[in-house]
């Protein structure tokens, strides 16, 4: 196949289908094993310095906020981030000095984004769907996937994509290299002790991430009996052998929303936004001190930073249940 053009951007993950297969063979339990553990254990055991991270969904909705806070709390370093459809997480991780490279699909808002440049974080430019298609390729165990977008732009130019001549139509087509993250973090509505997970509602790319990632941590609003999974297998979004750890995390997406369970916390989001707006980084340091370093666990965060009254109020205001739990 004739390659006509290549993006100049740094490729933070080199496609390696056989390498990934070997990893899966050596490291992933195929049997039905219980894998419930605390945040602290899951992150400590599975997230290594230098890992490339993807997560689903977003800080505003059904995201793995408690796991991300734990990553910052444990001061993980030199992580890479697949920044697709991301609003504040890159800013948070940057504030925690956790990252050294970002694939930019959309990495949010706020003056603090300029700190990515100031801190010398390595970047490459993509688009939201370019990253989710790369994850799809990674999830299929193939080295790349063609696409009919991204081409012709500076986003292409600063990405690791290529432009090739399709051998059948002989037309130009963009090739997107596969992405197999080292770590995938996904927050879900229900999960059993083995990792069979259910996601209610639309989402960005949870199945692609769970499938493509070498290590997968699920945080779940509730743990359900496997009996319910087996009675209704059509509801399973992620099957057990893709998953390495299950963490029980009620209100795990706070300050984001989980549809059908609790509303997003506007005040808390504004507080986070203010922290991401300060280009000096001081506001973010204070934010992290209060919400991450100053509390030892997710429960402590909920108790000390948010409080029962507000949590109950957020729960009460989630009046749309149709399509989620009923």
């Amino acid at each position, binding site marked *: 196949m004739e390659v006509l053009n290549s993006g100049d951007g740094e490729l933070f993950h080199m496609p390696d289908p056989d390498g990934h297969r070997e990893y899966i063979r050596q490291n992933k339990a195929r049997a039905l094993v219980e894998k419930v553990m605390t945040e602290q254990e899951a992150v400590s055991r599975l997230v290594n310095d230098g890992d490339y991270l993807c997560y689903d969904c977003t800080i505003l909705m059904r995201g793995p906020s408690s796991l991300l806070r734990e990553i910052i709390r444990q001061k993980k370093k030199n992580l890479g981030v697949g920044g697709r459809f991301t609003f504040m997480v890159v800013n948070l991780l940057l504030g925690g000095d956790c990252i050294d490279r970002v694939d930019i699909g*959309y990495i949010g808002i706020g003056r603090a*984004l300029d700190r990515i440049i100031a801190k010398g974080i390595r970047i490459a430019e993509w*688009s*939201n769907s370019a990253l989710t298609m790369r994850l799809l390729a990674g999830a299929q165990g193939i080295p790349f996937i063609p696409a009919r977008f991204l081409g012709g732009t500076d986003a292409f130019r600063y990405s690791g994509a290529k432009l090739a001549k399709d051998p059948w139509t002989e037309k130009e087509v963009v090739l997107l290299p596969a992405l197999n993250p080292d770590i995938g973090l996904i927050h879900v509505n229900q999960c059993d002790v083995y990792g069979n997970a259910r996601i209610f509602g*639309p989402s960005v790319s949870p199945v692609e991430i769970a499938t493509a990632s070498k290590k997968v941590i699920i945080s779940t609003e509730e743990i359900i009996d496997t009996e319910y999974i087996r009675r209704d297998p059509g509801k399973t979004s992620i099957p057990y052998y893709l998953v390495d750890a299950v963490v029980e995390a009620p209100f795990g997406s706070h300050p984001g929303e989980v549809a059908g369970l609790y509303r997003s916390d506007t005040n808390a989001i504004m507080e986070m936004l203010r922290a991401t707006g300060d280009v000096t980084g001081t506001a973010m340091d204070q934010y992290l001190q209060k919400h991450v370093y100053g509390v030892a666990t997710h429960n402590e965060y909920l108790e000390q930073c948010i409080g029962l009254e507000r949590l109950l109020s957020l729960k009460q205001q989630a009046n*749309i249940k149709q*399509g989620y739990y009923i």
Partner: protein
Amino acid sequence: MTKASRFTQAEATICCTAKMIEKERESSYWVGGGGTPMTSALLAQKLYVPNLTVVLEDGVIAPQPDIPLDPLMMFVSAKVNYRAAAWTSMNTVCSHASLGFFDYGILESLQIDPYGNINSSLLGGDYYHPERRFGGAGGANEISSLCWRTIIHTDQEKRKFVKKVDFVSSPGYLDGSPGAREKAGLPNGSGPYRVITPEAIFGYDEETRYMKLLAIAEWVEVEDVLEKMDFEPMIASKLERLELPTEEELDILRVYISPRGGAIDAGNWIEL
């Protein structure tokens, strides 16, 4: 329908777009992000086309949002996703776009050039050392590449209509040469369609693909619009006047869609 005489610039853009959607009521719309694109779709849906086929990046197909939406949550929330025809994923929506199911993409941008290329990534400097860094191409790249036609919302300002954008995040007609998009791997026959500001509507010349002024608001003359551009657009031989927002449209916006303000507040007040 009563013509309004007092509205914000954002309301002007939103109402204009809603009217466009009403005229193309059987088309499909891929709306990128919140702000004026989403608000335009909500207005069109509430007032003109209740069963509007609108899709969102995160897999939501034809929602009937529970308005008013919460502040900051103009997408990715239960209220926006409400009563959709289907809840899918980003790759699903992208695949439908790739297959040609989406007629119009509606987007905002920081900068736009004469061939409709847009920037949402950075300003000044170069890629590795920009003066200001922004979110990135986001979904705008696939929306601009794969929808049959793209509609851009922006402000009528010189710093937005530039000869050359600081970074091409999402494709217009690229360098304007014939077949440039196709040579870059984009689908045949897709491309930029309109640029809507509070004061003007632009299209693109059929032969040269260069931006062309098509219509101006009642409260401006051509010179006022040209003054606020860093390049000179072509001008349609028959320049039209934009329809004014109607009182009905503004009521829906102010009472049902955005009672707390937000997207509709942006810009100056226009008083006629």
